[in-house]
């Protein structure tokens, strides 16, 4: 199926206007030896056949299990209004609002997004919008490096492994350093180790990164960590989960300079990995270090309020090699999803989502403990926690046979850690049902027998 618009007659008229006989003439600038005759790909498909193929592939995935898998990506109820708005061609078939006069829809929604995330994080400057939680974390680290002129980042090992991996990749240019901070037995970041690391006068630290909740679902001592970081002249970066901010202290409240995180829980489907939304917010002091797009309010010639991309001298199309980041196309539509989600669910709804997840998680904890699997860690959690089972991979596989997706075997990400080798990281949200919890517990009891 071709979406090409031209009739044979159209083509002829255009060729005639160009004074050539065939479109091939327009490709003569490709040196003959490298001119390709065609592609070895399957033949075109009519839309009917394509639709069938796509349904068939989608049908080969299984998304109907009782799932307790979170680990950074969470199933939440997405109000129907979100997709209805996202499906509007005026939004999804536009591009970056380079021409503000005819892009106020996109511009205003980005501005609203900035405002919403600023309120959630209590940090004034929000960049709309990064690729995902991992790259937002990496960009936050780079911001800290630029802002402090230092080259050393300390990051808790209880930050999502992919975020740490990506940050390491982004910092892998010889001159920059990323060190992992250990966790204590209760599962949270070791503040003594942090203090020691910060104490190295030879090598001052640019930024300290902690997750809240951390990867194990646990609540970190963010205030104390921020204080230590600041005392050493380092910036403090909180890697946060946005729904939790409805009930947990906001980064701005405990003194974080930057908040990074994954916006997927705000109305975005899991999609096997993306597109998601990198959250990145900072204090106003860091405004000119912020990578990515910023939209500001202004006026038009007649004094009407309007919105426009601003502080663009940070961006690659203007500053080229001196830009704050190479980011160009990013996640505007996902930011729109978050905007519609937050506007639709509202502050009370968001709190209900967070609190219901916590309630379900406690129910889950109880049921799993009764089935013989206790928690690994002692620290408080919100809606995700690790349980200990003998031979976690086997238990996980056996439960899968019962249509229970028993979270993430943490040994995959911490193969050398004796405590975590036998751990399953499980989560609950407002969409988790008591019936699913009961199924999980029953199946687990069976497997552990």
């Amino acid at each position: 199926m071709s979406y090409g618009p031209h009739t044979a007659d159209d083509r002829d008229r255009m060729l005639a206007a160009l004074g050539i006989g065939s479109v091939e003439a327009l490709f003569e600038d490709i040196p003959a030896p490298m001119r390709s005759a065609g592609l070895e790909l399957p033949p075109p498909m009519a839309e009917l056949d394509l639709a069938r193929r796509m349904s068939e592939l989608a049908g080969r995935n299984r998304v109907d299990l009782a799932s307790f898998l979170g680990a950074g990506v969470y199933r939440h109820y997405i109000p129907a209004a979100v997709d209805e708005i996202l499906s509007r061609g005026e939004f999804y078939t536009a591009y970056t609002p380079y021409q503000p006069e005819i892009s106020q829809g996109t511009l205003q929604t980005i501005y609203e997004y900035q405002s919403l995330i600023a309120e959630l994080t209590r940090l004034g400057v929000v960049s709309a919008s990064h690729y995902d939680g991992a790259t937002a974390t990496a960009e936050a680290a780079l911001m800290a490096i630029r802002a402090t002129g230092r080259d050393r980042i300390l990051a808790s090992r209880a930050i999502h492994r992919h975020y740490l991996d990506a940050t390491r990749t982004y910092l892998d240019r010889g001159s920059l350093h990323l060190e992992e901070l250990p966790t204590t037995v209760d599962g949270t970041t070791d503040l003594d180790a942090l203090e020691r690391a910060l104490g190295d006068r030879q090598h001052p630290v640019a930024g300290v990164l902690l997750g809240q909740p951390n990867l194990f679902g646990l609540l970190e001592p963010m205030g104390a960590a921020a204080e230590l970081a600041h005392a050493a002249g380092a910036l403090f970066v909180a890697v946060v989960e946005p729904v939790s901010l409805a009930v947990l202290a906001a980064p701005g409240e405990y003194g974080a300079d930057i908040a990074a995180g994954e916006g997927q829980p705000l109305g975005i489907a899991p999609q096997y990995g993306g597109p998601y939304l990198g959250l990145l917010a900072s204090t106003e002091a860091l405004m000119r270090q912020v990578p990515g797009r910023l939209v500001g309010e202004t006026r038009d010639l007649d004094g009407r309020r309007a919105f426009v991309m601003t502080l663009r001298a940070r961006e690659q199309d203007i500053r080229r090699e001196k830009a704050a980041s190479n980011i160009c196309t990013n996640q505007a539509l996902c930011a729109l999803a978050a905007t519609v989600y937050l506007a639709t669910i509202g502050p009370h709804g968001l709190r209900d989502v967070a609190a219901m997840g916590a309630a379900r998680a406690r129910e889950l904890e109880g049921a799993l403990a009764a089935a013989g699997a206790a928690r690994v860690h002692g620290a408080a959690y919100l809606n995700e926690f690790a349980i200990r089972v003998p031979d976690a991979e086997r238990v996980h596989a056996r439960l899968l046979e019962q249509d229970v997706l028993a979270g993430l075997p943490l040994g995959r990400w911490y193969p050398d850690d004796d405590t975590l080798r036998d751990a399953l990281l499980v989560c609950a949200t407002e969409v988790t049902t008591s019936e699913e919890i009961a199924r999980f517990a029953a199946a687990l009891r069976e497997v552990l027998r």
Partner: protein
Amino acid sequence: MSHGPGGVSLVEASLAGAATAVEEARPGPAGRAAVGATLQPTLAELSRPGRGGGKVPHPPKDALDGIPADARRVSPLALPELNEPEVVRHLVNLSHLNYSVDTGFYPLGSCTMKYNPKVNEWAARLAGFAGLHPLAPDALAQGTLELMHELQGALAEIGGMHAVTLQPAAGAQGELTGILMIRAYHRARGDTERSQVIVPDSSHGTNPATASMAGYETLTVRSASDGGVDLEALRSALGPRTAAVMLTNPSTLGLFERRIEALLEVVHDAGALAYMDGANMNAVLGRFRPGDAGFDVMHFNLHKTFSTPHGGGGPGAGPVACVERLAPYLPGPLVIRDPDGRYRLERSDERPTAIGRVRAYQGNVGVLVRAYAYIRAHGGTGLREVSADAVLAANYLRERVGTAYELPYGGPCKHEFVASARNLRAASGVRTLDVAKRLIDHGFHPPTIYFPLIVEEGLLIEPTETETLETLDAFAEAMLAIAREAHDDPQRVLAAPTTAPVRRLDEASAARRPELRWRPMVGRETPCPT
């Protein structure tokens, strides 16, 4: 507070008041219109304490008892409170303020704003695709894994490359991935002195920005007068410190790099690798395969070449393809088909030479689904038609626009071409910016302007392969009409746009005193209504 339809707050009302006075004085849809584009208040202005709710059930009262006091939020959660009807109306009305491919011609050069087939949107929303958790075991993800595997193969075929990663989230991230792979390659050979990346002065901004981000020094080489890279300039920039040369082909001037054989030869002779920015592949699909030509690594822009929607600025996806000697460095996990026909993600111990991840999980899979559907719909023959149509449209439009604007470079062009309003400026004071704004009044989205930076008063025009001849002709006529207007009535062009929802904006004060969010709504939070 008094409110207008859809709840215009006082703040907005005073704005609207200002506008109304003006509205009377001049044509254009200023102020409020029953149908069409009308400026909107913000969500904060629409918010009323006590509205909203009903989306999720209420949790038990003790739900948060396990959270220590010092970990709890103290600040009010002062998000806007609205009911669904107001949210929907707000956003539907905002959508009307956007120009989009679904409403008109969008010849934004370098961005390939072509039509996005609706069946792809439908497919990406199928529950089996959309609902799949990124850490789901392979056994649950066979459909998406098969799709990704087939897409890896199709992109390798299209690029004439050996292997592909689908992980990068956009073109720029593809570039970063490629450059980091190049570093890993040099490093693995013990070739550690290479600290420079060369880009032509016509390159897209992401190229030099990427080089910097990857910790390289950027050298910029000038273009020759024909728009291609100056071979001599490149030769003298190259040396033992060159890690890579990044070339865009066809270039951001819309030109196929005619000296490509010679260029690649000098690059490789210097021991550097050749990166190809493949953002413009729609011009050469099925006609030029970078791998065949000798490029070592490249990225694709799925949101351009393979017609996934641009989403108001994203998301896109920027898969990277490379030749065999670079394949060990592709970031993992790749998608693998086992001999038994089952698909799986590569384990991290299978390819320890891989550079680290550039993002979490497997990539913007929702975008990959759309690109896959596009490729399957077209097949190999259809993709070759795509490049024919893209190039034919661009050359035709170039021919027509060239009767009134300067064409700094010779033809044929590929998918886009640069015109310049230098002649207009000299004759009438009308600049490219003014031409662009006046195009809005003629019903069109302006082309990319002042880009590439090397063209004076440049307009980068990309008609794409999905626009009809009627549309191309109408756009050409508007361009010619504006050239005439510049001569006959320059004030009119300088005042443009006058028919858009707003006139030109005060960008300077926006940057001087950035207002990046609503004033906080602190204290307006209300207790939960139930």
